[in-house]
């Protein structure tokens, strides 16, 4: 595939790089944007799911006779109706043995949501309770109840090793730090829950699904129901948040389809908030034993990490986080060994949550680096500078932007005033500061496709099977098409999120959307322009190769014609082009680099942490839209603050019951905790990475937040927190212990 030449670093661009307002902002502020929960086909029924009240149990009997007499109940679905329909990697829609509190047992569709709620409560289920375990550490202990037939851990530990870390750790005269860090089970809690509206027309099924991946839902449901793919159309126009949790086909899509078929009417199944917390994915809880070894000058000699990640009861296909990643890439080090073990527990299935693995590992590694800096009596930023990696040591290739992290270090340090002298605090309220690195991929990849139509009136339509999950994809793709065609961005409409006509594009995850689909849109636009140039050559009677498109005109020497005239002349024909993402460069590794610095104030009497400043410097290739870029950073850092200080799904271990499956006690940040973010973009268009030069930004900003805050709290108080979240209670306990 021929690749378009990337725009030069100093190229004058008219649409790309501008803070164009969000294309769908008006629809969102007026409430007219139609989300999955707002789709109202005629005759719509509302569905509810009956979920297991036990963490582990055999379903012995399900009695639905009470529902027969209930007015308004239209369809009931149990294991008897869905036998053999597989789900997750080795389970079923309604498993015979439920493996977590919240596992699906039955579902009802009724005329109203209230009737559906009554109906699921009227189902009588006989369970045989089985022993359970909800904590990863308990699950790997000897004598633990068996979570799955295959055992409580995944197959083999995933080991990655370079050099000889055992020998390096044994070297005399070195400095070693070693500690265990744990991170919590955190829940995405997107405001729009997972859900589906399903409608059948004969053997054709339409699903409006709150998903980051219309093609994954199409494939998942088609396979489960034995339908050809072209009979399943999946639509996602607007979605109320995903953050990773909606990147796979979930049971709700299949259950809604089955209920709708049984009832002969469209069915909407939106999870309630409790179910959203129990059964719709969460970030893996991890336990990481970390060892760092350096010489007296602070040069890393060896890194070791043993990682256990709790994936819950099932493997969703989206739960296998690369928690080893940061240990292998953050710093230059010849001897690294990581060992990653999957642990099963009787809890809901895990699924990737914004920077899966990296946010967890960065907390451990970046805290350990801070501990090492203290041990060496070195400035923590200086220690990082001394261990700078210019190449990708996993792929053994140079980075496309080898100076990205260095530029981020300096930009953050300068904005923060890192090198300024400080007076130590000894009073009740103490200030501290911390730093952490964040490295992510976000390079995008093929395959990703797009189509562009250039209408006779000059307007442009872009169509792709990707989805805008709130990040601004619609807007950024419009800017890229406008740039390539030389038209005003307001003339471009972008159609996304429909398997019926959208060319394949990947799941909106991994911060990969812009860098995957952006170049495809650019290529499609270039091909549409080629059709226009062919026509213009005929009109002018000149060699096609002599024609040049310059903004609104097509020129050949001193002869020229306006684009508008060419479009009009060709009408009713419409110029069009398809475009596909080019392969990534073979001789380079693509990564994005950033740094976070936090300044906190800790009130040692009441255990309150106040965030004074959070400086984030981030390199992410060419910036297509600076306003949307900043919003992504703001969102990531805000979620990072929740991960650092408040968010945790808490279980009663004895009963296996989650205690805070709601938004009252699961504490996401509020406006009162608005993050004092100072964002410093590092401009570094990455033309080697792809033809747009952009890299993803969704995930990087959450990676460094928690360790930067934890390190700042240590700096302020001398208390090292090796477990997240650092709640007020934990801080008070630690302060009390210190006295």
């Amino acid at each position, binding site marked *: 595939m021929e690749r378009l030449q990337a725009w030069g670093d100093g190229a004058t661009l008219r649409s790309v790089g501008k803070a164009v*307002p969000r294309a769908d*902002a008006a*629809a969102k502020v007026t*409430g007219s944007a*139609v989300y999955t929960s707002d789709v109202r086909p005629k005759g719509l029924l*509302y569905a509810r799911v009956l979920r297991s009240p036990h963490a582990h149990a055999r379903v012995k009997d399900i009695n639905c006779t009470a529902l027969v007499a209930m007015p308004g109940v239209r369809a009931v679905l149990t294991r008897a109706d869905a036998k053999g329909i597989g789900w997750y990697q080795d389970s079923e829609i309604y498993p015979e043995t439920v493996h977590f509190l919240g596992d699906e047992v039955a579902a009802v569709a009724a005329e109203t949501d*209230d009737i559906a709620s009554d109906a699921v409560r009227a189902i009588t289920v006989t369970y045989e309770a089985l022993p359970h375990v909800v904590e990863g550490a308990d699950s790997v202990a000897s004598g633990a109840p068996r979570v799955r037939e295959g055992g409580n851990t995944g197959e083999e530990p995933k080991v990655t090793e370079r050099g000889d870390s055992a020998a390096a750790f044994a070297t005399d005269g070195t400095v070693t730090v070693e500690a265990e860090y744990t991170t919590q089970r955190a829940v995405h809690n997107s405001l729009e*829950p997972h859900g589906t509206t399903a409608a059948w027309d004969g053997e054709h099924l339409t699903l409006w699904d709150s998903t980051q991946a219309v093609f994954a839902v199409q494939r998942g449901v088609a396979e489960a129901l034995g339908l050809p793919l072209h009979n399943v159309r999946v639509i996602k126009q607007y979605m109320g948040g995903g953050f990773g949790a909606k990147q796979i086909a979930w049971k709700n899509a299949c259950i809604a389809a089955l209920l709708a078929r049984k009832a002969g009417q469209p069915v909407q199944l939106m999870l309630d908030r409790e179910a959203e917390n129990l059964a719709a994915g969460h970030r893996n809880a991890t336990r990481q034993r970390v060892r760092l070894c350096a010489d007296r000058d602070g040069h890393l000699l060896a890194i070791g990490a043993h990682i256990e990640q709790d994936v819950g009861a099932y493997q969703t296909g989206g739960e296998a986080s690369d928690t080893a990643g940061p240990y292998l890439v953050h710093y230059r080090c010849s001897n690294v060994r990581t060992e990653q073990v999957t642990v099963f527990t009787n809890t809901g299935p895990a699924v990737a949550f914004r920077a899966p693995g990296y946010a967890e590992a960065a907390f451990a590694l970046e805290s350990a680096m801070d501990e090492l800096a203290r041990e060496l009596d070195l400035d923590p930023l200086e220690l990082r500078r001394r261990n700078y990696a210019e190449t990708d040591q996993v792929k053994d290739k140079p980075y496309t932007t080898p100076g990205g992290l260095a530029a981020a270090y300096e930009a953050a340090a300068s904005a923060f005033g890192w090198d300024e002298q400080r007076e130590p605090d000894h009073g009740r309220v103490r200030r501290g500061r911390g730093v952490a690195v964040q490295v992510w991929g976000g390079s995008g990849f093929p395959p990703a496709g797009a189509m562009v139509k250039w209408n006779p009136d000059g307007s442009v339509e872009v169509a792709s099977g990707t989805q805008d999950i*709130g990040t601004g994809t619609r807007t950024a793709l419009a800017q890229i098409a406008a740039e390539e065609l030389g038209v005003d961005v307001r003339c471009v409409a972008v159609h996304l999120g429909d398997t019926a006509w959208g060319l394949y594009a990947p799941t909106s995850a991994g911060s990969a959307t812009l860098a995957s689909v952006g170049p495809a849109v650019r290529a499609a636009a270039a091909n549409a322009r080629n059709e226009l140039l062919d026509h213009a050559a005929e009109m002018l009677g000149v060699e096609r190769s002599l024609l040049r498109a310059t903004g609104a005109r097509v020129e050949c020497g001193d002869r020229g014609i306006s684009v508008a005239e060419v479009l009009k002349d060709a009408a009713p024909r419409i110029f069009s082009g398809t475009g596909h993402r080019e392969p990534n460069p073979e001789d380079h590794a693509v990564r994005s680099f950033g740094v976070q610095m936090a300044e906190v104030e800790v009130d040692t009497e009441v255990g309150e942490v106040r965030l004074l400043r959070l400086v984030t410097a981030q390199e992410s290739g060419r910036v297509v839209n600076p306003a949307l870029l900043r919003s992504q950073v703001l969102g990531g850092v805000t979620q990072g603050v929740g991960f650092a200080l408040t968010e945790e799904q808490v279980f009663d271990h004895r009963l296996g019951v989650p205690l805070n499956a709601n*938004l009252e006690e699961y504490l996401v940040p509020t406006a009162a905790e608005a993050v004092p973010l100072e964002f410093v973009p590092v401009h570094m268009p990455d033309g080697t990475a792809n033809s747009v030069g952009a890299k993803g930004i969704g995930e990087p900003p959450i990676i460094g937040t928690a360790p930067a805050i934890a390190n700042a709290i240590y700096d302020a108080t001398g208390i090292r927190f090796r477990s997240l979240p650092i709640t007020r209670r934990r801080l008070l306990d630690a302060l009390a212990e210190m006295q």
Partner: protein
Amino acid sequence: MQRICLRVNGREMELLGEPRLTLLDALRERLGLTGTKKVCDMGDCGACTVLIDGKAMYSCLILATDCQSEAITTIEGVGNGSLDPIQQAFIDCDALQCGYCTPGQVMSLKALFDADPEPGDLEIERAVAGNLCRCGTYLNILAAAREVRGTAAVSRGAP
């Protein structure tokens, strides 16, 4: 089932519902006014905020039958065909991402600005403190509200 009469966005509307029907479900399921969002259904998040006699209220915590004598305003009733300055400020400040909490945020600020065109920063923060935004756009929401305050002050200052 009983007959419930509601005055929503200046229009009289009638529906049949059980006494337990919440105002939120009445708006979304019976009247097709889906701009008001259901997120927690228990008063934790603010996505279902509407105005009842000008006050910002969680519609998931109110029974439809209990607000038959009040004036109800939903996001569909804001702006009268054009954008309200609050909505415009949200666009200008990129005070939204996925947009699911946005109608609730706008309604909370609408109640604030209708009552006090020049609220202080703390009043603004309090007005939206009960509206969760999981995308984390709070800084931009607060900036948008301050921008509204700015324009209101300027327009009043003109002769």
